Every structure is written in structure tokens, then in C-alpha cells.
């Protein structure tokens, strides 16, 4: 079973370079073809908001501590930019807990937190993709024996082509450097 899982993982990975979009810049995170599923069950890649500036972060839904703060921080960042920029800006929150954060569970979070899913996506990632996504987004995480996670928080601003423009580990307030980059 495990070896089959890894075989699937291998296939998934091998698909990456073969399917790499050569049109994307070499530094684009969209070079990685992740398999994501959003809170409404739609399958898509990391580039679900291709063409928009997008704030990308990782989290897990059952977190009681600083994770609600991630949503507050993203909202604070949205509020801090000019309306014209805000209209273009998108938010992608990817769970690193694929076992518990099913698309249905993510849908429930979106409802209870009143998330505007026209501009925000909560995404479930294939287990084989989670580590790579975390590596690309500079998120550190580890699962504890009780099923919870230790993790660092990182909010990454991607360009319309998926390049990292700015990132922050700050929580609780909009990051100044990131806001400056968004205003450009």
C-alpha cells in the first residue's frame, strides 16, 4: 500500500517537469503543478489565480491558536491597499492537513468565517504535494503525535505569473514591505 502510494507520488512528481509550463518564468511557483481542490470541490492547480496578484499561505483548519490570526492578517492586508489593487488581489490558503481538511471541512470554515469565495480559495492539497508546497512557500511544519501541527506562518505575495514578490512571517498586522510591493 505504502509503496503504491509512493509510486503514485513518483508519477505525480515526474509529471511536473514533463508538464512544466515553459512560458512561466524560471522562478515562478507555477512551475510546480500541484493538485489542489477548493472548498467547493473544484480541482485546480497552484495557479488558480493566474493573472492576479495573490497572497498564498498554508494553515490547518482545526488550529485554535494563531491560525484564526492568519485570516485576520490577510484581511488586514486587503483593507490596507487601495480599492483598485484590492479588486485585483486574490487569496489562496492551502491546508497542510489533507486528512482532516477535506474540501467539505474547508467549505465549513469558509462559511463560519464569512470568507468571500469569489476572491478567496481554501484549498486541499494532495498529500504527496504538501511538503513540496511548504518548501516552495517557506512554511515549516511538523505533525505532533496528537495529530496537531507545529508550523511557522508565511504569507507570500505572488505576481500574476507566480513569482514571489514579497513574503512575511509577521502575523496580526499587515506587513509594510509587502504592502509597498502590492502598491507598485
Amino acid at each position: 500500500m505504502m509503496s503504491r502510494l509512493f509510486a503514485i507520488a513518483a508519477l505525480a512528481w515526474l509529471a511536473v517537469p514533463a508538464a512544466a509550463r515553459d512560458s512561466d518564468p524560471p522562478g515562478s511557483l507555477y512551475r510546480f503543478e500541484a493538485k489542489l481542490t477548493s472548498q467547493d470541490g473544484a480541482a485546480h492547480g497552484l495557479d488558480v489565480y493566474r493573472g492576479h496578484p495573490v497572497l498564498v499561505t498554508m494553515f490547518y483548519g482545526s488550529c485554535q491558536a494563531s491560525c484564526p490570526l492568519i485570516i485576520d492578517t490577510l484581511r488586514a492586508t486587503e483593507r490596507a491597499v487601495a480599492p483598485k489593487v484590492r479588486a485585483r488581489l486574490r487569496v489562496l490558503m492551502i491546508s497542510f492537513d489533507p486528512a482532516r481538511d477535506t474540501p467539505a471541512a474547508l467549505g465549513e470554515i469558509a462559511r463560519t468565517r464569512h470568507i468571500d469565495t469569489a476572491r478567496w480559495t481554501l484549498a486541499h492539497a494532495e498529500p504527496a504535494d504538501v511538503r513540496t508546497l511548504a518548501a516552495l512557500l517557506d512554511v515549516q511544519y511538523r505533525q505532533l503525535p496528537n495529530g496537531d501541527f507545529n508550523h511557522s506562518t508565511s504569507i507570500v505575495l505572488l505576481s500574476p505569473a507566480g513569482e514571489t514578490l514579497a513574503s512575511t512571517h509577521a502575523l496580526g498586522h499587515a506587513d509594510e514591505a509587502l504592502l509597498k510591493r502590492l502598491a507598485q
Partner: protein
Amino acid sequence: MKSTALVLLMGAAVAATAPPAQRAGIPAATFATILPPAPGVATVHVDAFELDRTPVTNAAFAAFVRSTPAWRRDRVARVFADERYLAHWRDASTPAPGAERAPVTQVSWFAAQAYCEAQGARLPTWHEWELVAAAGPDTADARSDPDWLQTILSWYARPASDTLPDVGGAPNYYGVRDVHGLVWEWVLDAQSMMVSGDNREQGDPDALRFCGSGAVTMEQKENYAMLMRIATLSSMRASYTSKSMGFRCAVPRPVPR
């Protein structure tokens, strides 16, 4: 009758000349880890697995790059490997002359993991690697042997040389070679190494960046060799490469029915 004997003889000849399996079997174990899985938990359980007996060589990685050209240094996307990726090779698919049997280095975590996945394997987790690295020549856990610790430390104190020796040092208890003394090695969960050497995070505003129970505290502070491993891994990002960072692959051992 005659032919049976011949077959048996041939079988014996094959067994005598066949190289040892590429991977060593590591039995399941519970051991005291330097990186506790949670605060207040000193031991960790590792399921049985198989680990490459040596680090991956330049020759083996060259074969991978030839079959998967997206990982050539002139084709790899910069997001997966920095500009020093395989920069020491003769060309994009050929190692430096004479270095075929030396461990491949200057590979990113992404590249190392892609190599292992192409072999139906993956990188070992930190705890898997740590379990094997605790073994001495004759014992599964040599960490309380001062002579053994000193031998390892003397390697870390040696200045790095530009030319790495070939793989194939003395085997440890498990028959695994070059765990110490040759290169640093990537692990699967290198991104999980949120480490605080003390409990500074308490009351620190940066503690907010950690969700859950906060960063783990390291144990066994006298085990400098392991502490250096963790410090090195935690300083690397997944696209980084280094002249002394190589890797080997692992597979979970199938559970016997």
C-alpha cells in the same frame, strides 16, 4: 540429476558474486531522539524501512538527469534549484572526471526528492536518518561511547576539501556506510526543523509565527555532531545547494502479511 547440481552450483556462484543489496533493512525501533516529536516526549518510534547503503553517487545522479532532462542544470527551473546546482559537473549531464563514485552534492532538496521518487523511494525522515546515524560499527546505539563520539567529531572538525572521496566507507551496525565522515544529507522533513536551542520563544513576539505548541526544544545538547546536522539542515532552504550536501534514499519496508 546432473543438471540440478549444475543449477545449484550456478546459483551459489551468483550468490557469491552478487553485490549486497543496494539498501539495508532497518528494523522498527523506539529510541531517544535529539529532536523530540513533542514537548515532554523524549522517544520516537520509527517503523521498519530500507535505506541506501551509501549516499547517491555522481554517476547514479547523472543517469537520472539523462533520463529526466528537466533536472539538467541548464534546464531546471530556478524555483527548484539555485544557480550552483551541479555547477561542479563537467557538463549538464556528465560529472567531473574521476568523481563518478563520489557522492553527488550541490543538489537541492527538490532535486534529491525527485531522484528518490524516480526510484520508487523518498528521502529518509530525520528520525529514520538519526536512528541509523546513532549506530556504531558493532552496536545499534553508540551514542554513549565517548570514543565513537570523538571519532565523529574529528570529522566535523576537518576542513572541507574540494574533492570528495568515493562512497564506501566502513559499514556501521546496519551495514550502512558514510553516514558520518563524507557529506551532509538531505532529509524528507528538512522543512520541519523548527528548532529553538532553549526556550527563548516563550514571551517572544516572534512566537506568534509558530502555531500549535511552538518550536520544539532539542535534547542531548552534548551530542554536538547531531546538533550540527540539525543546524545545517535548518539553515537550508529547499532550493539551496551546497558543496557538502548530498543525500540517500529510503523506502518504507512493506508490512509482512
